[in-house]
């Protein structure tokens, strides 16, 4: 998988998160990993269809997800990861990935579309993306750690 495919998504995080209540978006690590990865906490799945196909996963621990949702809701306390907090996190995923499609089109990859987010909440889980390799990138967003996995393949023809 072409590691440059991560750039539109990184740009989208940097562009969108400040619009929804976050001050700092830092990119920490970037690595190429296998198609199966472990998760613990919350994972948002958004599928992509077009000249690139696959999925983007956005993961964070349960505590981070609560903190993240609270920040999105202007500091409203979030003690349980309830439906309101779930909705906030999935809306963030939707907006970041929608904008990533726009960023892709700026580098000539047009016509991508995304599916609505599905959330998985669990411990010691495993996710397998439909690609040989996945790009993993870590962000620190106002001190909250977020793991993003991009598993996309180019569809020929």
């Amino acid at each position, binding site marked *: 998988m072409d590691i440059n495919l991560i750039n539109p998504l990184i740009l989208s995080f940097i562009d969108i998160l400040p619009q929804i209540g976050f001050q700092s978006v830092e990119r920490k690590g970037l690595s190429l990993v296998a198609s199966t990865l472990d998760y613990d906490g919350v994972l948002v799945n958004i599928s992509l269809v077009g000249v690139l196909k696959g999925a983007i996963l956005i993961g964070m621990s349960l505590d981070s997800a609560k903190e993240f949702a609270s920040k999105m809701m202007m500091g409203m306390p979030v003690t349980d990861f309830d439906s309101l907090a779930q909705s906030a996190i999935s809306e963030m995923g*939707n907006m970041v990935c929608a904008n990533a499609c726009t960023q892709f089109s700026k580098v000539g990859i047009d016509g991508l579309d995304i599916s609505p987010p599905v959330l998985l909440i669990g411990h010691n889980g495993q996710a*397998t993306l439909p690609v040989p390799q996945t790009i993993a990138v870590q962000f620190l967003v106002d001190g909250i750690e977020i793991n993003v996995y991009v598993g996309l393949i180019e569809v020929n023809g």
Partner: protein
Amino acid sequence: MSAAKVMIVDDSFFSRTLLAETLQLGGCEVVGEADSFDSLIETYNNCKPDIVTMDIVMPGTDGFECSRALLMNDPSAKIILVSSMKDEETEAEARRIGIAGYVQKPIDGEYLLNIIKNILSPDTLYEELIESAPGIFNEALSQNITRMTKTPVSFESMDTFDDTYVSQGITTVIGIIGRYSGSMILDLSSEAAEQIVEILLHRPSKNHEEVLAMVAELANIIAGVACSMLNKKDKSYSLRVSPPSVFFSSNSEIASPNLKIQASYAQTTFGSIFLGIGFKKGAASWI
């Protein structure tokens, strides 16, 4: 239909006045106006409009940023983006984030009123999809299980999937795009999946990866068959499926907070298979 309540977001006093005039002449009621990001949410929550018109260019912000904030505040907000630019990518992103309509400046009053009418009237094609999709997805699952394993399948419908669903072990998620975008969720226990693999391969599964690969393939076939059946019913659906993401966990919950999932349990010889399907209402004016 009672007069549509419209809120106008535009930094220009002149543009707001012009737009308000057009809307009022067309029988709409202008219930609120905002000229900046700061007054946006408060005005929206106070006037509770049916429709928001949103200028795309504003000092210090833009229509996308304001729309994101509004949709975060109320995911069911119906926003019409107003822009002097007409470019495909702006339209495409607007549609992806859930903006309901798009009009170009200078605004053609009749066109705008039509879009408002379209957004507020029921979308029959969507209603038909919601009505027929669960049955068609169930049929696709039942056909495939029966064909592959020569065992019968019956369905038990689950009334709600409002909150969360606890996975039985292996969850597959397939994204659907097209005129309406959606998700298919298939969930079953590892034991059930292992039994299916054993029937298909005439031997026990070698490893966990083999089991997950079979589940991914099964979900892929079901989603593909069901979407092509729906496309045959009405080709304007133009549904296409993403490859499957597969999740494995001993105790995880699945949630779809912003999309209603219609779910049923397929009762098979191997145990029950959860099948959930949901579609998001599309944007009226892009059609």
